[in-house]
């Protein structure tokens, strides 16, 4: 093979075939992987959303855009979308604010820092489903430990079915979502904090800034890359968050505690095509959200310059 390739390019010295391929051998495996595990499933997902599939799983032919029509006419969809937006905003904002404080704390020197840093990893290391099911049983009406504790502390009159009522189920699920998002976010921000050179702080001190000014004008701007990474990853994670809600309420009653991802899974039981249509919409939403967010973030950066 190498003889033929050098024959076609007589003027060239040195290595033959491999060089001709350029960077392909190096990026090839990764590209192949992306095609197989990302692009192909996306293609299948979009294709399924235009198919009519019976409840037994038999493909009955093309459905055109019917599945999308059905989806957008579904009376549950508007409230599900609103819930998804609320869920994402509340969980991500709360996580970022608490993580900023936690990262600041863990950046200080104090006895037992190492142990507390380890402890922070625990909710991250535990499986999401495990954590969610743990909370589900702690909140159980008849045997949940949290119900007992709150009753003994006088916070509630009697055991409540927290997860059965959407108005109480949402706050608890958001709490669990924040709880499991904290470790990653805190560590990202902590890593960001540690990259800020001490000279900058010394210079600020010489200039006579107070603590609050230092934080606003030095720490936060220099933390922007870490903040951005944490925020984008959390946005995607929380938006797509499935295990917590599915383990705790299955999106019920009806779809009252479902985000679009959970709703997609609920639809799967009745109609795979419509469920695929929901996935496509979901996918588009994530892409749009991330693009908008990145745009907004960059725009800020340029203005600050």
């Amino acid at each position, binding site marked *: 093979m190498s003889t033929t390739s050098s024959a076609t390019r007589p003027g060239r010295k040195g290595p033959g075939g491999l060089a001709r*391929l350029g960077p392909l051998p190096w990026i090839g495996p990764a590209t*192949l992987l992306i095609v197989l595990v990302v692009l192909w499933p996306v293609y299948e997902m979009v294709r399924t959303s235009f198919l009519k599939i019976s409840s037994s799983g038999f493909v009955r032919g093309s459905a055109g855009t019917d599945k999308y029509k059905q989806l957008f006419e579904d009376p549950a969809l508007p409230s599900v979308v609103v819930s998804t937006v609320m869920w994402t905003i509340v969980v991500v904002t709360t996580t970022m604010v608490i993580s900023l404080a936690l990262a600041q704390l863990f950046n200080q020197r104090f006895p037992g820092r190492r142990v507390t840093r380890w402890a922070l990893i625990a909710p991250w290391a535990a499986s999401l489903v495990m954590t969610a099911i743990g909370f589900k049983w702690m909140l159980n009406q*008849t045997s949940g430990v949290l119900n007992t504790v709150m009753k003994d502390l006088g916070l509630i009159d009697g055991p409540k079915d927290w997860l*059965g009522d959407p108005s109480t189920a949402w706050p608890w699920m958001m709490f669990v979502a924040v709880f499991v998002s904290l470790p990653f976010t805190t560590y990202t921000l902590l890593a960001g904090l540690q990259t800020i050179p001490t000279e900058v702080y010394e210079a600020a001190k010489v200039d006579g800034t107070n603590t609050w000014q230092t934080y606003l004008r030095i720490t936060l701007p220099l933390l922007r890359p870490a903040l951005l990474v944490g925020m984008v990853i959390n946005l995607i994670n929380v938006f797509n968050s499935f295990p917590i809600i599915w383990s705790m309420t299955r999106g019920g009653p*009806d*779809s009252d505690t479902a985000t679009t991802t959970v709703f997609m899974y609920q639809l799967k039981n009745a109609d795979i095509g419509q469920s695929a249509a929901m996935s496509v919409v979901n996918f588009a939403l994530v892409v749009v959200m991330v693009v908008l967010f990145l745009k907004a973030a960059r725009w800020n950066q340029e203005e600050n310059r």
Partner: protein
Amino acid sequence: MNKRMFVAACTIGVLTLTACGGKDGGASANGEVTLKLVAADYGDKASNSSTAYWNDVAQRFTAANPKIKVDVQVINWNDIDSQVKTMIQSGNVPDVLQTGGYADKVADDLLYKADEVLSEPTRKNLIDSFAKAGEVDGTQYGIPFVSSARAFFYNKTLFAKAGITEAPRNWDELKAAAQKIKAKVPGVTPYALPLGPEEAQGESLIWELGNGGGYTDAKGGYTLDAKANVEAFSWLKTNLVGPGLTYANPATTDRKTAFADFAAGKTAMLNGHPSLIQMSKDGKVDYGVAPIPGKSGPLASTLGVADWMMAFKDGGHKEEVRKFLDFAYSKENTLKFDETYNLMPVTEDTLKEMTANGKHKDLEPFFTLLPNAVFYPLGDTTWDAVSAEIKKSGGTAVNDPAKVLGELQKKAEAAVADQ
């Protein structure tokens, strides 16, 4: 050379990734046939899993028919529907399937007719009402496998504490009993109303039947939002849910929870099926069984549930499947299965044996219910889709009966139009 190696590596990668999709059962060169059996797991722990039962049946069958092997795959109830769907979608269709519903597969013309895969004696042996429930437009496709019927369970100890002497016969008596229990035995749920996704379709139908309602009219059209049904849910809303005589959120409470509560003595009344008998005994609950109360008197016909066996045409093993099903439906095998899981028989000989052999005193009230059982509209090819919708949102009808049932009716009509 490097390029070639790279291509080779990629090809191997692709092959390994797709290799799992190409499994094909069927005849091998020496005339041996492997039947693929997919069945639901009726056990609740590893020790009584249905895998053991089916492996044993398969082994004895192959001993008698050396040319036919049976590949047994037992899947738990939560996953079986979606896994079977995937099998059908990917063309990896089982030969024999034992699960909860069959009609949607008939709509896609996937199944053998019952008379093609059952010998005459086996078919005659099926109890009539169940064989009828296996029909789609007059042709039987679904082969009943096991059955169960609903009855009203109550906790005698709690009733005594509350000063109630008799099981309630109608809705008003049920409400009065629930009020007494709430007043005298605090901490106990008077009536367990499980309208969560697990069983919304069953509990709803029982209450609707109590008011003369139901899911379909005489012609088989859906009547999910019929006046009688809306009234039944309105009664539940104002008389049980509103005053706190049942769970605070019935729409998210599953049957599992209700049964567990009953077996733990934490609930006084509920509609249960035979598996609750063993649970109650294990929980040392002194229980009573009575006919289900309707609006003005006990229900004349209760809800019957059957699980189904069906044979797929895809593999083309009609003869082998018939041999296997005839074997699986012999009295020896069905009796063993029914007795293992305390389920009700669907064959005449096993029913006779179980009523006569005196080992099933507990089940007696249920044996008498069987001939009059009412079924879901199982023979309707849209029922599976409609049932999925009822499971998802039917329970919320206790909050807003007319709106929720109206939306369900619309979805059901869309499913019928979409066939």
